């Protein structure tokens, strides 16, 4: 039956304790709905067939039945109260982070997610590293418009609002990458405002804090090879050339750091100028001057984007100063140079 197959495949991985209690309520509602659907629509179809007009037959004059009406008022009321209470109990767990939760600050801005670790002062973009089996609380705010922070695997979501703090918390129990979506419409690149929660074992998390880099972390719940094939990186804008391995690394960085939300590699203008043919080209800025797009121009445009605003674009890019290592800058520059 379509409905059953649909429901077996209908949920994302359950990556936390709360996700499991959420799933239990979900399945209760699904089966309750199937029951009422069959009762109502099945009943309707049955009645339509059984009492289709026949020659000579007469309808019966019935205007109501108090017992029936009382029943179909009282039973749904009781069920709805149960559902309400159950929903509130699970919600309560979702909305109250344990007091020992590790706090990470989150800033949403068009169109990337920035994460700050209070303890180390470290900042990451579009990837938040967390240990498994330890509660983590994300305290979030927005720099511009509304955003929404949604981790399907943990069944948690909150709007991210300018001028106030909201939060979500979770305790990941499956290591690997967990997808994050922006769920409050925020303009051009809303659908590319993506991030990953990277859940590491406690030892790996300590190593990460100490500066170790992790390559090819699998998607949570999948084998590494499979996950690379499936969607190691979300890429929605086709990048063309890749020359040499540094450029390849740079290409990846433009995806994970959120650059591709605004900069295309195919020559189409998005929120910012395209990378295509950019290197060594003449760039006209809003103050009427022309600049040669050499390495220093590119570096300045990444670290201090408002210094030179290209004609036809808005000064909306955030600074990446201090967010990229020298090696990463080298890789990104190598990539931009390769997109001809």
């Amino acid at each position, binding site marked *: 039956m379509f409905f059953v197959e649909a429901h077996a495949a209908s949920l994302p991985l359950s990556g936390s304790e709360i996700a499991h209690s959420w799933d239990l309520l979900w399945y209760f509602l699904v089966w309750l709905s199937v029951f009422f659907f069959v009762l109502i629509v099945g009943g309707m179809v049955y009645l339509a067939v059984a009492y289709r007009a026949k020659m000579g037959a007469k309808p019966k*004059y019935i205007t109501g039945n108090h017992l029936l009406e009382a029943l179909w008022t009282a039973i749904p009321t009781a069920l709805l109260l149960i559902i309400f209470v159950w*929903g509130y109990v699970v919600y309560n767990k979702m909305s109250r982070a344990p007091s020992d939760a590790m706090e990470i600050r989150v800033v949403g801005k068009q169109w990337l997610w920035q994460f700050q670790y209070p303890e180390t002062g470290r900042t990451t973009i579009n990837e938040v590293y967390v240990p498994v089996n330890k509660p983590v609380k994300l305290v979030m705010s927005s720099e511009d418009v509304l955003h929404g922070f949604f981790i399907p695997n943990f069944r948690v979501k909150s709007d991210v609002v300018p001028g106030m703090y909201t939060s979500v918390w979770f305790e990941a129990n499956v290591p690997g990458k967990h997808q994050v979506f922006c769920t409050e419409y925020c303009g051009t690149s809303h659908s590319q405002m993506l991030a990953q929660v990277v859940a590491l074992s406690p030892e790996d998390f300590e190593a990460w804090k100490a500066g170790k880099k992790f390559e090819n972390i699998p998607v949570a719940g999948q084998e590494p090879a499979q996950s690379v094939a*499936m969607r190691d990186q*979300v890429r929605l804008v086709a990048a063309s050339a890749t020359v040499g391995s540094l450029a390849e690394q740079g290409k990846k960085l433009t995806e994970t750091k959120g650059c591709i939300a605004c900069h295309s590699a195919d020559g189409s203008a998005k929120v910012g100028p395209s990378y295509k043919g950019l290197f060594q080209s003449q760039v006209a800025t809003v103050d009427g001057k022309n600049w040669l797009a050499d390495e220093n121009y590119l570096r300045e445009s990444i670290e201090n984007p408002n210094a030179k605003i290209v004609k036809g674009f808005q000064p909306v890019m955030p600074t990446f100063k201090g967010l990229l290592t020298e090696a990463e800058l080298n890789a990104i520059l190598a990539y931009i140079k390769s997109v001809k």
Partner: protein
Amino acid sequence: MSDNYLTASRGIKSWITTVDHKRIGLMYLFSVLTFFLIGGIFALLIRLELFTPGQTIMDPNTYNKMFTYHGAIMVFLVIIPSIPAALGNFVLPMMLGAKDVAFPRLNLASFWIYVAGAIFATSALFLRGADTGWTFYTPYSIRTNTTVILVLTGAFIAGFSSILTGLNFIVTMHKLRAPGLSWSRLPLFCWALYATSIIQVLATPVLAITLLLLMMERILGIGIFDPKLGGDPVLFQHFFWFYSHPAVYIMALPGFGVISECIPVFSRKPIFGYKAIAYSSFGIALISFIVWGHHMFVSGQSELANFVFSLLTMGVAIPTGIKVFSWVATMYKGQIRFNAPMLYALGFLEMFTIGGLTGVFLGTLAIDVHLTDTYFVIAHFHYVMVGGTIMALLAGIHFWFPKMFGRMYDEKAALKAFVLVLLGFNITFFPQFILGAQGMPRRYWGYLPEFTLLNQISTIGSWFLAAGLFYTAFYLGRALIKGERAPGNPWGSLTLEWQSPSPPPVENFTETPVVKSWPYEYRPQNS
């Protein structure tokens, strides 16, 4: 044959200055259907873009405008006026045995105010467009450089049309009922319109104020909603949903009324639980004012507010359930005929049941946290708004078509179109429940590759739905020109509008009807 309302006077001027509620109803109907076509084309383009995960036919900025137009046009220019203003205008005075509505000139003014609103809203299409979504959430709606102000002005103006129509209907029902037509003999369509009118009159002004504040914020920077100026963006959502949630019932209640008329007529049975259905309309109207916060469970609203709004929201399901059970029970021991209006009423029951049950998911606090702002919500409200209101509109159009135009349509063609619409709709929207549960957010121009299959099924479904609707337009258009002449009462209905010739004369009845029984007196001996 004496003149009917269509032939009594001729020429464009006789239409645009008419104060005949039937002609005004038809002008609304054609305007609404025109915008339904435009909004529908946007919907098809949206689905086509979503056929592949990346770019299919348009860039993200164009896509964002498409879903904004689709939503704004369908909500403000199609669904809100569809049944009350178009069908209600035509049918309500006749059901009451009246010559017209209480304020015929005001009625004409309502129509032209609607047209003015529509012109403002759609003029944005030819300028820089609008890309805020139909919900106009701040601060995005303040910052975007699109011509959102025109759409806001359009919705603001169209709101007054809705208020005036509601007012007109309330007075009409109080003052112009035929002799013998007591409140307990009022057809359920009238009860539904009464409940709708109350919401229109009480809730729409709040929308007007909200949109006005938003315009002032954009033009003058007054700082009501912008946190940079000390405002609160969440406050906008409260204002917006304080209207827009009750508005859901402006859209749904009249549809319930149509279904309550169709099922007894084609089952040859009295409606089951007349009083329960009538009162439940008012129950729904009342509760609709105090559940707006369920749109905001993850908005940053307080946990206490979430608790209260979730509990109250469960209260909506009870009167709605009573209606659904009563409609199904009406068919028991009937003699059911499957004319087009009945088919659409049954289609309505299937889709609205799914829409209603999934509404319980979304009213449940924890469940909503995961599902809100995903495709689950899109699927849910399309099952309610299209599966509910648009199916009821189609039921109503097929039901009253012979009365409006004095012609019958091809029932075989209607059956084929119905099958296409039913299948097309379910194929389009059912997969979206699964997409949403899997986590695909709404208003996404691009999506992850694993969502591709379900999106493609949905897009293909939209073509079937469109085919069914275009076919409906075709055979109804053909019936207008060369359909068989309709008798006064082709369905054997007992409500008053059928006791007059088809099409009716200018003032509806040759002599004032006198009502001696309630409208669902389908006794075995007279059927």
